[in-house]
């Protein structure tokens, strides 16, 4: 066996298909279904129409559907303007607390770097492959952190506790992601070792996977981490996960592609220490470090620091990449393995390059001469073993800072992990909402409320599992407490390291200044050389325009001009004129504003033949080859020019460059890359040339490819020309022209940030610096299309403050909801529609149209339900749009003429009436009319003393018909609703992160706090409608008319007869026989009545007896039920108490 294993490849046995047995039978069974076995003819015989369309309509429909699907797949191609190697991709690891986020990062880091990470603080950059770097960030558990993380994530790993199921955080995060551009998402199921039953595990996986798919797309990757081995995820699974990450492609997202942004991985306070000493609450200067992402960052752009505010980036400098790709890095150091790793907030990584210093962080076990240095508190105790010299050096280092200053510094960058706020256990255990198809469920686990997202179809399973899961949760309590202990240890370590870094910075700063001085001399000398040697003077022309330094004062400009005045060519033509004008206008800030250049010098006499010949080649009548040469020559010289300059700088500045950055990237490699780029460019140029020569061919190919391909082609060409045009510009100039490229490591200095940002800095919360484009720092009204989230339980009320997350920002604002009517009017809505989009208008910093918006009402962490209240997209900035509200003015007529009526109670003053002249009115019965004018003293039937005040408010209206006194007249009008000019940026970074940010409160919240009732207008209450019965007067027909009427229609109102009729009056005498019969009938009737009376009495007696019996029975049963209930309640109470006691123990 051993020989075989070592000897070489063992030939694998080829697979042999089973020809008998169960599996063979299975295969043969399935075969007849497939078409393979059948010949074509046979198929046709079986079903000749199966593969043909039966109707042309259906064929058309299918075809259109197919093309629609095809088009849906297409996206408008976006130009990727990133040049060079990209910044590390950000992998955000998100999940509810205690799901294993940090552990996953630790395992992944371990996998890549073979390094054990004590704790995950801040972004961790690693090199994952030759072409790829990754930056791992742990998403904090509050909603603010989640929103910020969603804005910079390239890949989100959603960790889900498999033993528990989905929690609200996951869905909230997904929703935020979707609205801020959807980056790649991958689900990771953890805690799968809690399942004992394999079948159940399988089912749970299946269920969770399908639920995950419905949220993202069918087939979205859900990864399973089956369990822990030695407190770590299994190597194989982490390896697989890393493989998935490494092949992932990241599509450009439109918001991020148009805005530069930086995820800060290092943060320092650079306020002068004495200033802090004087006033510990003074505004601070901070430096932020991070990779530039998104798009190029120009100097002087404003940026938004999430949770802090808008700031000017006062100093931006590019630093050498702290974590370069291996292909670029020089193989100089020994420990190449560990260099692929950069996490300053976690206190790891070794070399830090700063603007003016290099920090060397030496791991303790690599230092040979002493085991520990002063930075380690435990080390001081062991200090006896130390060398004297070493100690001397260390003490010298220490003298630069006093101890308390160091302590201050240390508390800046490192914070202990705050414990989670434990939720009061009296929270409701379960809350089933009946309204939507999702349900929320809370239970108390490890001292916090877990917000479970339960869906109807899986309700039953979850309830069954409930107790089991709970038990396992409480079992792991001990582990968590241990973890927190570890945290504290690592904290102290980190603080020491940062202290050491500070020392380094101070010691190095002196020498770097010296260097700069030297450089200054050299550059001066070189300048004069330049002036003498170069005949091109391209810098001079730029200086002429932009001035020598950054300052743009006109005096400077003039000086520059005078210096160069001997060169005729580069003198701007107007300069002479300007000077001559100076006599008239003593300062040239008021010169005339005129784009046309009027040359004061005498024009040449173009009748001269020589002159004409001199410009002949500029015309088509001239020599074409000459003209061509003119263009070519110029191009050639430009190229030469560039080369000359390049060489020149290689001699001088090249050295300078190296001197400046001691550890610069390899030049040879850069050259290689340049060469490759040039080759690529040449190819493209050739292509472009070919296209130019054969435009018809080009057209053909484009038509064949389709629109999107044409666009793609165009964009690629544009990108290549960009690269080509900027290739010959030197580094400093390039930065000035196009800004810092994406992927560079930047140091940004921000002045005058509030001290709270430094004080409350927490490395667990990533800092996002997002650049603002033109016009995005101004404030105005914005209109968004908004929809309440279907999982949010209430509709939203107009004028209730709400927190919006738009672009980089988060701010609280007061929206007014509206909907567009048929005629384009924006009608105010008191509440958002239940399931429909509506418009929302609010005041705030502007964001370009199509930007996604997430709205939140409550930021608190222990809130039970789904926190995202609404989602929206920005439609436009709109100052002109008016939101209207309906107003109904109601009045009653006080005097009616033919078609004119005086209406009272509608207006309160003549002025109001004047405003509404010509407005249309209507009565309840539907008679339309028009407001005319205020009535002046025309009403005589009203006592003027009583209604003296009212008289002004009476208005004359005309109607299309006569109205009745009982009619109500109303006027339908619209009034504009003012949108409140209020917005309040969320300053969550300026307060402790575990504190909930409190902004403006809603009216309902205030009422609840102050225990106020909702004010009730008595007039608005509904009362029972009282309708008096109408009294109608008798109809009177005039006598003349009556006479003319036919008899049938005549009213027959004769007086009632006074004497009774004869029949009633006369007496009746009976015959003897008749009398007998009559008596008999009377007797019989008497008997009958007596019988019924007896029977009735008997029945009543019976009923009474029955009722008594029944009441007795009822009493007994009631008693029994009460007893039963009491027993049940007692048991339930016991159970509850037990649960309450469990998590506390």
């Amino acid at each position, binding site marked *: 066996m051993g020989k075989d294993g070592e000897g070489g490849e063992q030939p694998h046995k080829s697979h042999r298909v089973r020809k008998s047995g169960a599996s063979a039978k299975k295969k043969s069974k399935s075969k007849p279904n497939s078409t393979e076995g059948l010949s074509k003819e046979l198929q046709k015989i079986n079903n000749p129409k199966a593969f043909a369309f039966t109707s042309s309509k259906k064929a058309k429909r299918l075809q259109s559907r197919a093309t629609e699907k095809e088009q849906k797949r297409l996206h408008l191609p976006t130009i990727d303007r990133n040049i060079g190697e990209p910044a590390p991709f950000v992998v955000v690891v998100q999940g509810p607390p205690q799901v294993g986020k940090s552990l996953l990062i630790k395992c992944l880091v371990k996998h890549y770097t073979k390094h054990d990470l004590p704790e995950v603080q801040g972004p961790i950059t690693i090199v994952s492959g030759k072409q790829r770097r990754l930056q791992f960030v742990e998403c904090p558990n509050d909603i603010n952190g989640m929103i910020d993380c969603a804005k910079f994530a390239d890949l989100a790993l959603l960790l889900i506790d498999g033993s528990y199921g989905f929690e609200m955080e996951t869905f909230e995060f997904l929703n935020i992601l979707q609205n801020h551009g959807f980056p790649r998402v991958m689900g990771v199921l953890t805690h799968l070792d809690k399942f004992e039953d394999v079948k159940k595990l399988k089912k749970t996986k299946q269920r969770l996977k399908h639920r995950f798919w419905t949220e993202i797309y069918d087939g979205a990757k859900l990864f399973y981490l089956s369990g822990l081995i030695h407190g770590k995820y299994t190597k194989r699974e982490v390896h697989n996960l890393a493989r998935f990450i490494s092949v992932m492609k990241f599509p450009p997202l439109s918001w991020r592609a148009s805005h530069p942004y930086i995820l800060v991985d290092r943060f320092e306070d650079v306020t002068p220490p004495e200033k802090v000493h004087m006033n510990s609450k003074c505004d601070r200067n901070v430096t932020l470090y991070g990779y530039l992402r998104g798009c190029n960052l120009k100097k002087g752009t404003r940026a938004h620091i999430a949770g802090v505010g808008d700031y000017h980036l006062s100093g931006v400098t590019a630093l050498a990449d702290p974590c370069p790709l291996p292909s670029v890095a020089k193989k100089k150091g020994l420990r190449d393995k560990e260099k692929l790793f950069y996490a300053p907030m976690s206190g790891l990584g070794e070399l830090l390059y700063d603007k003016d210093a290099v920090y060397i962080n030496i791991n303790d076990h690599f230092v040979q001469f002493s085991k520990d240095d002063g930075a380690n508190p435990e080390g001081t105790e062991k200090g006896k073993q130390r060398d004297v010299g070493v100690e001397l050096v260390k003490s010298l280092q220490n003298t630069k800072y006093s101890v308390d200053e160091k302590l201050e510094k240390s508390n800046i960058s490192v914070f202990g992990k705050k414990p989670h706020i434990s939720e009061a256990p009296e929270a409701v255990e379960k809350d089933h909402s009946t309204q939507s198809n999702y349900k929320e469920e809370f239970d108390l686990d490890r001292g916090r409320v877990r917000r479970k997202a339960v869906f109807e179809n899986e309700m039953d399973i979850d309830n069954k599992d409930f107790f089991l899961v709970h038990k396992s949760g409480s079992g792991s309590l001990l582990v968590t407490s241990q973890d927190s202990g570890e945290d504290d240890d690592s904290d102290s370590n980190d603080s020491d390291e940062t202290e050491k870094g500070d020392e380094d910075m101070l010691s190095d700063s002196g020498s770097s200044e010296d260097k700069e001085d030297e450089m200054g001399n050299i550059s001066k000398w070189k300048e004069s050389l330049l002036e003498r040697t170069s005949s091109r003077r391209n810098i001079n022309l730029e200086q002429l325009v932009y001035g020598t330094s950054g300052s743009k004062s006109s005096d400077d400009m003039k000086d520059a001009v005078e210096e160069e005045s001997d060169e005729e060519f580069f003198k701007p033509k107007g300069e002479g004129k300007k000077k001559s004008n100076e006599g008239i206008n003593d300062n040239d800030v008021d010169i005339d504003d005129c784009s046309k250049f009027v040359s004061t010098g005498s024009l040449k006499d173009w009748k001269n033949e020589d002159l*004409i010949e001199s410009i002949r080649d500029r015309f088509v009548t001239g020599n074409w080859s000459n003209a061509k040469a003119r*263009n070519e020559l110029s191009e050639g010289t430009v190229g030469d020019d560039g080369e000359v300059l390049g060489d020149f700088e290689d001699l001088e500045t090249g050295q300078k460059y190296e001197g400046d950055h001691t550890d610069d990237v390899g030049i040879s490699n850069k050259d290689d890359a340049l060469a490759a780029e040039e080759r690529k460019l040449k190819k493209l140029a050739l292509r472009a040339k070919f296209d130019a020569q054969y435009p018809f061919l080009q057209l053909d190919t484009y038509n064949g490819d389709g629109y999107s391909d044409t666009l793609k082609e165009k964009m690629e060409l544009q990108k290549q020309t960009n690269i080509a045009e900027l290739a010959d510009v030197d580094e400093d100039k390039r930065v000035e022209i196009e800004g810092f490229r994406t992927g560079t490591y930047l140091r940004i200095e921000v002045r005058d940030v509030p001290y709270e940002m430094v004080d409350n800095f927490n490395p667990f919360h990533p800092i996002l610096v997002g650049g603002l484009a033109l016009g995005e720092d101004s404030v105005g009204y914005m209109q968004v299309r908004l929809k309440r989230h279907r999982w949010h339980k209430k509709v939203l009320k107009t004028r209730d403050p709400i927190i919006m997350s738009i672009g980089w920002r988060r701010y609280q604002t007061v929206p007014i909801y509206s909907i567009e009517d048929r005629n384009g009017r924006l009608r105010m809505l008191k509440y958002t529609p239940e399931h429909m989009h509506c418009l929302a208008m609010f005041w705030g910093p502007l964001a370009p149209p199509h930007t996604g918006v997430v709205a939140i009402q409550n930021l608190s962490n222990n809130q039970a339900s789904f926190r995202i209240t609404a989602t929206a997209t920005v439609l436009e900035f709109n100052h002109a749009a008016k939101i209207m509200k309906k107003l109904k003015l109601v009045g009653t007529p006080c005097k009616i003429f033919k078609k004119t009526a005086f209406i009272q109670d509608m207006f309160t003053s003549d002025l109001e009436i004047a405003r509404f002249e010509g407005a249309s009115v209507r009565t309840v019965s539907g008679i339309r009319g028009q407001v005319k004018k205020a009535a002046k003293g025309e009403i005589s039937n009203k006592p003027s003393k009583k209604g003296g005040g009212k008289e002004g408010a009476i208005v004359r209206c005309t109607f299309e018909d006569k109205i009745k006194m009982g009619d109500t007249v109303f006027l339908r009008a619209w009034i504009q609703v003012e949108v409140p000019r209020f917005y309040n940026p969320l300053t969550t970074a300026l307060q402790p992160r575990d504190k909930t940010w409190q902004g403006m409160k809603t009216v309902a919240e205030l009422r609840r706090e102050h225990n106020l009732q909702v004010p009730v207008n008595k007039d608005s209450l509904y009362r029972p409608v009282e309708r008096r019965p109408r009294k109608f007067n008798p109809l009177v027909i005039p006598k003349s008319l009556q006479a003319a009427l036919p008899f049938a229609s005549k009213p027959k109102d004769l007086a009632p007869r006074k004497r009774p009729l004869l029949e009633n009056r006369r007496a009746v005498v009976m015959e003897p026989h008749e009398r007998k019969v009559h008596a008999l009938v009377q007797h019989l009737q008497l008997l009958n009545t007596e019988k019924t009376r007896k029977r009735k009495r008997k029945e009543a007696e019976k009923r009474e007896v029955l009722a008594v019996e029944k009441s007795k029975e009822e009493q007994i049963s009631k008693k029994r039920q009460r007893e039963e209930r009491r027993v049940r309640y007692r048991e339930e109470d016991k159970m509850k108490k037990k649960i309450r006691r469990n998590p506390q123990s």
Partner: protein
Amino acid sequence: MGKIQYKQLKGSQNMRLRLLLSTLSSTPIIIEDIRAEETLPGLRPYELSFLRLLEEVSDDCSVEINETGTKFKYKPGIVMGGRHLVHDCGTLRSIGYFLEPLIVLGLFGKKPLTIKLKGITNDSKDPSVDTFQKTTLPILKQFGVPPEGLELKIVNRGVPPKGGGEVILSVPIVKELEAAIWIDEGLVRRIRGYSFSARVSSQFENEMLHKARGIFNRLLPDVHIYTDHKAGVQAGESPGYGITLVAETTSGCCISADTAVYRGGEEEDEFEEKKELSPPGDIGEKIAATLLAEIEQGGVVDSTHQGLLFLLCALCPPDVSKVRVGKLSPYGIEVLRHISDFLKVKFSIKPDPATNTVILKCVGCGLKNLSRKAS
């Protein structure tokens, strides 16, 4: 962000440009010391008229001017555009003065702009409306502005001092411009001229164009000058005549020169009056010489349009634009300075000694039309 931060500027120079850039980059500005030292301090009526024009086309912009008019605050709003707008430009500066910033502003509006401008159509100080029609609008097309809806219609002519001209400008809106690499100046293919006479005999016109053509004929056969004799209402209220010459090259560049002759008002200085005295033939020769001087200089645009060209380059998406111009004009330099001031876009300026031209390169600021409504 609570308080509005104004950008502080001084003097009345380049006010149009400053206001335009302020509106495009939505930076509020304060301009101080406007002709503070002069006998007639403060804003001129035409500057006020321009401010009013801005208020007309944009929404929610605010202008505060102090009592003497030497200082004002301008907070830009949103460019609304819209149809059936009318603006009276006054008779101090010609319509060209207002058109230059307006066409750029109109591109970045909420709705396409159609505006009727009244005033002086042709004078010798600002580019004439003919120049706009034939030269400026084609420049815009180079930067991806759709030709549909981009139009300038001359209704009436009007020359100083009384004006009375009328043009209708319509500008479409764009989402963003397109970067242009435009360095091929080509060869002059043909020369077209547009002369007009208003309230004067057409004889003036004929003589002028005859002389002008005399110069070109030795260089190029394809020269044609259109005449446009106006009478009645269309001729405006003052007598005058003028000419615009446009040289078109094989690569589609247009180089123009224009002038107008009229009886000067009170405010004209002696220099202008002298010019007025010269016979029409001399005017024709002079303007032909000016055009030839422009052609000799090289570049894809003439010196008048340098400013506009630089501005368009700077407003492009963050791609490289590259243009070639002749000598930098003072106005062009001012534009470059202001662009770097407001839009933070700097140009790389390289002379091309072989052709005595300058090649400018820049990466656009990536301005997008934010006021457009999302559909």
